[in-house]
């Protein structure tokens, strides 16, 4: 059963916005992402083999499978960090197989990382601001023109970042170095940072790995809120209970291929999928 953001949550203190719990209003329309016959080869290893699927808008698509199934590699290809050896990826109808990671990000695809993706030597607020794009002070000329040129935008971004951090109870950490946060806090900052860019597609690589259940439930609730606001997500995750609560559509990968697709209830009934998990 997918998590319903309209239902009261058991996580203490989570403040849902009224607009968050209503329907996103995003029309079903064509899929936001289409992956066709995708293959990746590293030397003699083929972590992804002939993978095809599409992702519908304003939904969280789960991507599960045993270790080494090729889930993270697939996510890396979509994010532009790895170039495929075959096939194509199309985002909103535009082929994005060749662009680099930063170009993909500018198209509206943002990601989080399986391992720490924070900027440890930057403060929490600075981390958040790195999520925002097209900043006036990021060109040499803009920087040299000084705060009069970029200060207003910076102030607006700081205000927005603070609001997001407030929503997740991290407002007391604004000026703390990200490296001084706990694992769960870092994970939250990373997700919030990704949302600063207002991505059309958010790629989440094991967002619940290594964090306690309370934090995980909080993140679940927040992600459900983002989905309700119309954000599309692909989530690689090993915690199947979370996938069950959050994702209506789940892809199962094993040995580089997609071996099943459906709801968690459907997938649990499949013998092939149970075998794939047990056999690795």
């Amino acid at each position: 059963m997918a998590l319903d953001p309209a239902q009261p949550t058991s996580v203490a203190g989570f403040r849902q916005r009224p607009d968050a719990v209503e329907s996103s209003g995003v029309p079903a329309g064509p899929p936001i992402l289409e992956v066709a016959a995708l293959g990746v080869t590293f030397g003699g290893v083929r972590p992804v083999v002939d993978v095809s699927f599409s992702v519908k808008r304003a939904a969280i698509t789960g991507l599960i499978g045993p270790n080494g199934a090729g889930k993270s590699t697939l996510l890396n290809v979509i994010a532009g960090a790895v170039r495929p050896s075959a096939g194509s990826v199309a985002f909103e109808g535009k082929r994005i197989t060749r662009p680099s990671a930063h170009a993909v990000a500018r198209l509206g695809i943002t990601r989080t990382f399986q391992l720490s993706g924070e900027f440890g030597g930057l403060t929490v607020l600075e981390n958040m601001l790195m999520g925002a794009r097209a900043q006036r002070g990021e060109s040499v000329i803009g920087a040299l023109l000084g705060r009069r040129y970029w200060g207003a935008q910076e102030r607006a971004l700081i205000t927005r970042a603070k609001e997001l951090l407030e929503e997740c109870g991290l407002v007391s950490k604004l000026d703390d170095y990200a490296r001084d946060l706990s694992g769960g806090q870092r994970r939250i900052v990373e997700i919030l940072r990704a949302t600063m860019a207002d991505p059309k597609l958010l790629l989440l690589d094991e967002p619940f790995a290594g964090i306690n259940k309370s934090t995980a439930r909080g993140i679940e609730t927040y992600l459900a809120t983002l989905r309700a606001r119309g954000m599309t997500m692909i989530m690689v995750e090993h915690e199947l209970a979370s996938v069950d609560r959050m994702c209506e559509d789940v892809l199962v990968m094993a040995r580089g291929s997609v071996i099943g697709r459906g709801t968690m209830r459907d997938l649990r009934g499949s013998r092939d999928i149970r075998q794939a998990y047990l056999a690795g």
Partner: protein
Amino acid sequence: MNWGFFATTVIIYVVTSLIAAWGLDLQFGSTGVLNFSFIIFVAAGAYTAAILTLGSPSGPGNVAQQQYFAGATLPFPLPWIGAMVVGGILGLLVGLVALKRLRGDYEAIVMLVVSLMALYIVLSDVGFLNGASGLALIPSPLQSGGNLTGGTGYGWFYSGLTVVVGVIVGFVMHRLMESPLGRALRAVRENERAAEAMGRNTAALRLLVFALGGSLGALSGAILVGFINAWSPGAWGFAETFLLFAAVIVGGQGNLVGVAVGAFIIFGLIIQGVLFLPQIGGDSALTECLQWITAGLLILLSMWLRPQGIIPERRRRLSRWIAPARRKRNGSGLLRWR
């Protein structure tokens, strides 16, 4: 002792070294690019300024019959500007080769090799920049005749000019580092993959700091050569890069004031100060060795006792930009933190 000459020498030497150290800090301290070839940009600036003031090698002004591939007699400050342009272009070229695909240790090794290649090219091809003899009788800016260091009056003028340039460079560096661009550079240093995923073209940012740092190194060389009026391969060995690294590490990476303190300690107190010590055992070479030994020990001690440097990188408290946040103890949002 001519204290006026000593003071102007120290001022010019420290400030030019500081300009170069700021350039290196932009690459190493702020962006995390380990550039062991930095001194070649200083040398490129010095040689460029030299040949842009010496005049044509076949012209009547070349009384010493020095060999160099081309020359001109440009008025001040064009030789300095030319030096900065050459330093920037060289930075882009070296960066395109070394930064595009390599990272970390491999990148550092390539930089070291580039430095050695540049040195041996200049040493081997005498017709290029007069080989091991180097270039001499380089005219000082805004001084007709150009007889070595000129008088103390000119020395004070030149040191004042150097300080003014240093202040301008410091202002520009401050603007860059305290802007969103500076933040993006620090993000590249902290986690390049994440910066890329946040839409930053990290390859372009690394190239940018290579070009900017190269320009600053070249400017430093151009100013220095206008004072000492000579430049040869002996002035830009790997040891000089090591001293610049020492200034950045000891002073405080990523902190402009820290790097200034480091530059004063390394270039003012150690390199210049040691020259005034009495000879050890009647051997002047031993006293000179003290420069390197002291600088090396200082780096070791700094790494051991205070790796962040004397004045570490400043924490940017951006929350001050907006109204003070209502401090909510333990948070009341998504999660409660202990």
